[in-house]
């Protein structure tokens, strides 16, 4: 099964599901149960079979499968999670400078009884929405809106949750004209010193600086089938092998899965998704995410602003791998390339 890619796999599951629902209808409609007494057993078998297939396929995912799952067009997006996890969402718009970016949503809502500031990338599902959301490629005004709302949250001591789901920041001429680089950098700079708890969760695509621009947090989590990468696999393949089609190899080389990100110390936790991926059960996915948010926010709530900022700094300060050779001795004996 694992040789099927996500699209093929999803198709096979869809066929299975169609058969299953036909069978279920027959069982339900059955006026004369004695004639089809073994149908319920057949149904149960088929359901077990379905679970086994999914489990098998998911137990053997390649990095590229993970990329496709993270980009799955039925995967819940930020506003879907907000709808399922929070109440009373008050979306707030605009950067007060230039515009309002549909690729980032921001506002306040309640997580149970706790006010939370929410910032997240937003993709669109239909053509019109995709254009409005710029396919999730956030623009300078999106990052600046995010920064404005996060500073507002910090001012009133409201914790911040950010949801990451972008292929990358907008890279067109107009984004450069309005300082997309500065906008991303400034958010990281500001987030590093906001004296309020921040939890970031990669829910889909964690695309490079565009992702990190709203992900400098006390806790960084990833959903099981999200990815987080310094560069898109296609781009990486094109550089390494002059062949964007080698994207699956690149995906592997980039170590962009949640498991690897956790092992590298880049994320603090991986949130399990419902069997078959978040797109198969939004409610359950949102439930797991909500639970993780509550747990992580609870762990942060007793820290003072200063403590949060200090720990957040040390958290990122510690990321990176290198060796430090013996310092050069004053008597002229230099150690070699000890790395």
């Amino acid at each position: 099964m694992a040789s099927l890619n996500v699209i093929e796999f999803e198709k096979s599951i869809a066929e299975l599901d169609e058969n299953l629902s036909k069978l279920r209808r027959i069982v339900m409609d059955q006026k004369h149960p004695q004639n089809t007494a073994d149908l319920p057993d057949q149904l149960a078998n088929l359901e077990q079979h379905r679970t086994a297939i999914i489990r098998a396929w998911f137990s053997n995912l390649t990095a590229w499968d993970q990329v496709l799952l993270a980009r799955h067009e039925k995967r819940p997006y930020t506003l879907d999670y907000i709808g399922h996890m929070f109440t009373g969402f008050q979306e707030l718009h605009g950067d007060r400078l230039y515009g309002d970016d549909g690729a980032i949503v921001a506002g306040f809502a309640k997580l149970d009884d706790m006010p939370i500031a929410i910032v997240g990338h937003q993709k669109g599902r239909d053509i019109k929405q995709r254009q409005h959301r710029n396919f999730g490629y956030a623009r300078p005004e999106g990052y600046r809106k995010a920064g404005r709302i996060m500073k507002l949250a910090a001012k009133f001591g409201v914790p911040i949750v950010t949801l990451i789901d972008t292929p990358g920041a907008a890279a067109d001429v107009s984004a450069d004209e309005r300082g997309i680089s500065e906008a991303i950098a400034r958010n990281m700079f500001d987030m590093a010193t906001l004296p309020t708890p921040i939890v970031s969760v990669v829910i889909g695509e964690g695309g490079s600086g565009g992702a990190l621009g709203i992900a400098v947090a006390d806790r960084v989590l990833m959903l099981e089938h999200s990815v987080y990468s310094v560069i898109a696999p296609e781009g990486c393949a094109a550089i390494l092998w002059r062949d964007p089609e080698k994207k699956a190899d690149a995906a592997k080389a980039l170590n962009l899965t949640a498991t690897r990100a956790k092992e590298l110390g880049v994320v603090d936790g991986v949130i399990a998704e419902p069997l078959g991926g978040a797109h198969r059960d939004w409610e359950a996915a949102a439930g797991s995410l909500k639970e993780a948010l509550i747990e992580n926010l609870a762990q942060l709530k007793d820290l003072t602003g200063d403590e949060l900022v200090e720990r957040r700094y040390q958290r990122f300060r510690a990321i990176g791998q290198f060796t430090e050779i013996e310092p050069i001795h004053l008597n002229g004996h230099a150690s070699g390339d000890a790395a």
Partner: protein
Amino acid sequence: MASNGWFGRRSQFTQARASHGAAAIPDGVATKCVKCGEIIFTSDFEKNLKVCTHCGFHHKLSADERIRYTVDEDSFAPLHENLRSVDPLRFPDYQSKLDKGIAATGMHDGIRVGVASVHGVSVVLAVADFSFMAASMGSVAGEKIVRALEEGAARRAPVVIFTASGGARMQEGLLSLMQMAKTSAAAARLAAANIPYVVVMTDATMAGVLASYASLGDITLAEPGALIGFAGARVSAQASTQKAPEGYQTAEWQLLHGQIDQIVARKDLPDTLGSLLQMLGFSPEPTLDDLASEALTEADEEIAAIG
């Protein structure tokens, strides 16, 4: 950085090779400008700080050249030279690229850090060398930049960073990406300590480095003609409905778009830096001569008081 950044990075790599390949004519006596193609006597070229005597193009510099052209003579003392890259992801060909970079430049990464004085003002300095893997930012580069910024806060000395980079270093994956956050957080700490941070953008400052510590200076200078942008030309063209405007992603274009304080010719950089640091309240350290003459004055005063 990112899917958006990679064509940019490749074009930078290409440019770096072109620059270092084409500039030196084999016999060493003459040098060819990578911009206008003019052949210049190497001695004139170097005397002119590697600025083309014909078209004024500011060629890329090695870290050592940059330091020599910028700081007070013999004032530079290196720091953190003992950091070495590892290959945490066992990324295809990474080690061989590092080895090549080391062999070509004698450096172990694209960033040199140290303390120095500029017009007598003590500063912490970080300088990028584009010829080491396009000065892409991996764990070592990020760590060095952070240490420079922390050193500035600790010494209460201004931090001056000459930036150049193709972006985050793909070969260290997420670890490289996180250096953007790490360096930006260190810049925020320096800012919270009210210590000046001056960025000088040089050819080329792109992607993940532009989108982190390079864009966070209190004051941002740039060399004339330096390539400065988020994504490389091809990615940007793919993403854009509009054509790239005249001068797109040059220092001059970024100045028009509000990202740069001043474009400063290489020869004027020491004066400009010295002047700006003084404006922000950082005076030259007294030299030994100053101290001697001060001692003399005090002696005179004592004599006067006695007399």
